[in-house]
């Protein structure tokens, strides 16, 4: 083959690639069902959040959505799966702080800190310090005074989890004795042991103990949020008793870096719109989560970055991260 023919071929091939690329860019999005990857098993809290969002999402995003439950490794398995999918916006992750802690510990496989692009926040659930009804501590001040003279036993979910870090942070900021952390499988077990008197206290979400609070079996002492909760009008915030601490369990949608900018924008609009629908808002209200849970990309990304900073320091001080 003579040289000029080669050049022509190469040119032609290059043009073809360019043309294909142009077609690719103009291809309608979404063109197939969107997968929502979560680390929670079917029926877990995060799984239910995803499914509640999905009720009204097909109308807003003009496509079907499916949940992919990739349990395992506190989010590692879900990162692994999301990284194996094309970054074309048809795969979104529903992440929690657990995922961020997993990334910080370097367990995200090929996904590294900074590879996550936030789209929209889905839930914000403040942590609340609770004690059993038979506990001698009637107020936040009682509890804190006692905790300065002995180590309190706190129930938490696994070591290095969001609530574990919150317990340690609270103890440091309030100048308490080093707490004894008793890990449990889930919030339900912790509530039972609070009522049964096996634990001194726990940081839980309101919904986890709502029925016990209503039945006066559990007392809420401190809300770790910026403002008081509607569902707990009597309970002071941490700031009101002089401890500058805010902790919440947060979930939100994200994609991996490399997803086209225009598609992220479409996803943000669609997700925010579907989460402002009645069904999702009712779910937020009935599960005791804050009404301002749903925020867009800018605020959510700022929160992710902030948490990555504080989480890093906390893991290091717990000795979990070398």
């Amino acid at each position, binding site marked *: 083959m003579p040289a000029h023919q080669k050049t022509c071929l190469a040119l032609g091939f290059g043009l073809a690639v360019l043309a294909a690329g142009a077609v690719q860019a103009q291809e309608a999005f979404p063109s197939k069902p969107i997968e929502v990857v979560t680390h929670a*098993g*079917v*029926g*877990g809290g995060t*799984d*239910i959040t995803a*499914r*509640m969002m*999905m*009720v009204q999402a097909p109308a807003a995003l003009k496509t079907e959505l499916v949940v*992919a*439950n*990739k*349990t*395992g*490794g*506190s989010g*590692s*398995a879900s990162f*692994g799966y999301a990284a194996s999918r094309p970054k074309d916006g048809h795969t979104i992750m529903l992440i929690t702080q657990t995922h961020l802690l997993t990334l910080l510990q370097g*367990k995200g*496989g090929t996904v590294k800190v900074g590879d996550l692009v936030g789209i929209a926040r889905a839930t914000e659930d403040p942590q609340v310090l609770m004690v059993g009804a038979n506990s001698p501590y009637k107020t936040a001040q009682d509890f804190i005074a006692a905790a300065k003279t002995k180590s309190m*036993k706190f129930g938490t979910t*696994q*070591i*290095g989890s969001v609530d574990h870090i919150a317990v340690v942070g609270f103890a440091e900021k309030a100048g308490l004795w080093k707490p*004894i*952390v*008793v*890990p*449990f*499988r889930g919030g*339900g*077990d912790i*509530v*039972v*042991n609070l*009522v*049964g008197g*096996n*634990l001194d206290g726990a940081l839980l979400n309101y*919904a986890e103990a*709502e*029925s*016990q609070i*209503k*039945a006066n*079996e559990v007392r809420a002492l401190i809300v770790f949020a910026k403002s008081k909760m509607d569902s707990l009008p009597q309970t002071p915030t941490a700031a009101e008793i002089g401890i500058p601490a805010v902790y919440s369990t947060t979930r939100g949608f994200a994609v991996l870096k490399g997803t086209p900018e225009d598609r992220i924008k479409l996803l943000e609009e669609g997700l925010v719109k579907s989460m402002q629908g009645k*069904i999702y808002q*009712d*779910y937020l209200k*009935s*599960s005791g989560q804050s009404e301002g849970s749903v925020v867009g990309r800018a605020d959510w990304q700022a929160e992710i970055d902030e948490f990555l900073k504080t989480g890093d320091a906390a893991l290091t001080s717990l000795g*979990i991260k070398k």
Partner: protein
Amino acid sequence: MDAFLAGMAILADPYMVGIILAGTVLGVIVGALPGLSGSTTAALLLPITITMSPVASIAFLGAIYCAANFGGSITAILINTPGDPSASATAYDGYPMARRGEAGRALGMSTIASAIGGIFSVFVLIVAAPLLAKAAYSFGPPEYFALAIFGLSMLAAVGSSTGLKNLMVGAFGVLLATIGLDLMTGVDRFTFGVPELSEGLGLVPVLTGLFAISELLVQVGRLQIIPERLGLSAMKLPSMADYRKCAKAIGLSSVLGTFIGILPALGATTAALISYNETRRWSKYKDEFGKGSIEGIAGPEAANNAAVGGSMVPTLALGIPGSATTAIILAGLIVQGVRPGPHLFNEQPTLLYAVFASMLASNLIYVVLGLFAAKLFARITLIPDAILWPGVLVFAIVGAYGPNQSLVDVWVMLSFGVIGYVMRRYGFSPAPLVMGLVLGTMVEETLKQSLLIFDHNWLLFFTRPIVVALFVVTALSVCAPWLARAIRGATKSARLRAAEK
């Protein structure tokens, strides 16, 4: 009383009966398929239930839950593949019966025992939910530890091989239970860098491998042998004599299953395993177990369905779900604006009675289904092995992959198929392995939690009345053979002395 009648009135509403019927049929089907469980189905259908009325949506989910637990036994009996982990104990004796050509008898007993257990637990739920709800609070880690020790004390006796072999297999199961994230330290153990293993070995793949795949390997070696087909007897339903023989097992297991279901941390699987042990312990025909004892079906089946009603107690009375499926039912209630908890019994009694009525109805519907369909399903055992078992293999792979959509689970299942085959070749029963796997995690975690709570002073275990009672029962059951011998010896010498006089 008005509320009770209003709740029962839903059964006169054709729409509601249709919903319950649909839920029950669906539940039996997904229960029978190893890859789909009641909890997965309930979660998938949760968004659909939002559009229904609160009563209809919970009736629907409740019917799926009741029926799925029964459905699991169908495949456990016919092809040694528990459709649901809670049916694993049913396969120990159900499958040998099906091989003997008594599939109909086994399925019929499973149907009746399931329904009696299920209905008993719904009545307990109706009468005692608010009272029993409080019992859950007195079970902390120390009490669960004592309960798990009680369960493990039976390791040597569960399964069809010798005591020593059972203990070896059980210990292996406890060892396998350590795979995964250590709850106390957050460290991954024996996961070899596979993130999917950090949750521990999935019960579904392990069971499917141990039972179905190992059976497939056994069958491969038998293809030259033309088995004698007992066509007609396969359709025979249990006789009155069978029911009389199993009455004790069903009664005992219904009570035990309901109680274990009420404890928030334990579900139908544990209930079935512990009931299988207890049925065997109290049976007059101990030597039949593992070889096709009809009591060995009646016990666990009554228990796993009784655990359904039991686990609804903490769900409705405390808002604490006792199992994966009740967690979804709880979410379904919350979405409907109903907050479960102690106040629910005063605020919305009609809704509660409607839920109870629908669960009762579901239990009755699958009896009719089960007895009619038993004859139909029993024909599965008449399919030639060369066609049936490849089908089972496909089924098992789909089943292991399904719950987590993970290939790791498929590999786990296939590995356990080989392990199960080797165990059976050398006369080890797989039952203690399942026991060890389920109870091993519980023993380890509750012991560490208890020691943290007791400030590492283990003597404090003996300050808890429930713990002491369980320890005493465990000690008695371990020492039972020597005690019996001692008592016999004492009465004999007393008789001799009396004769000398």
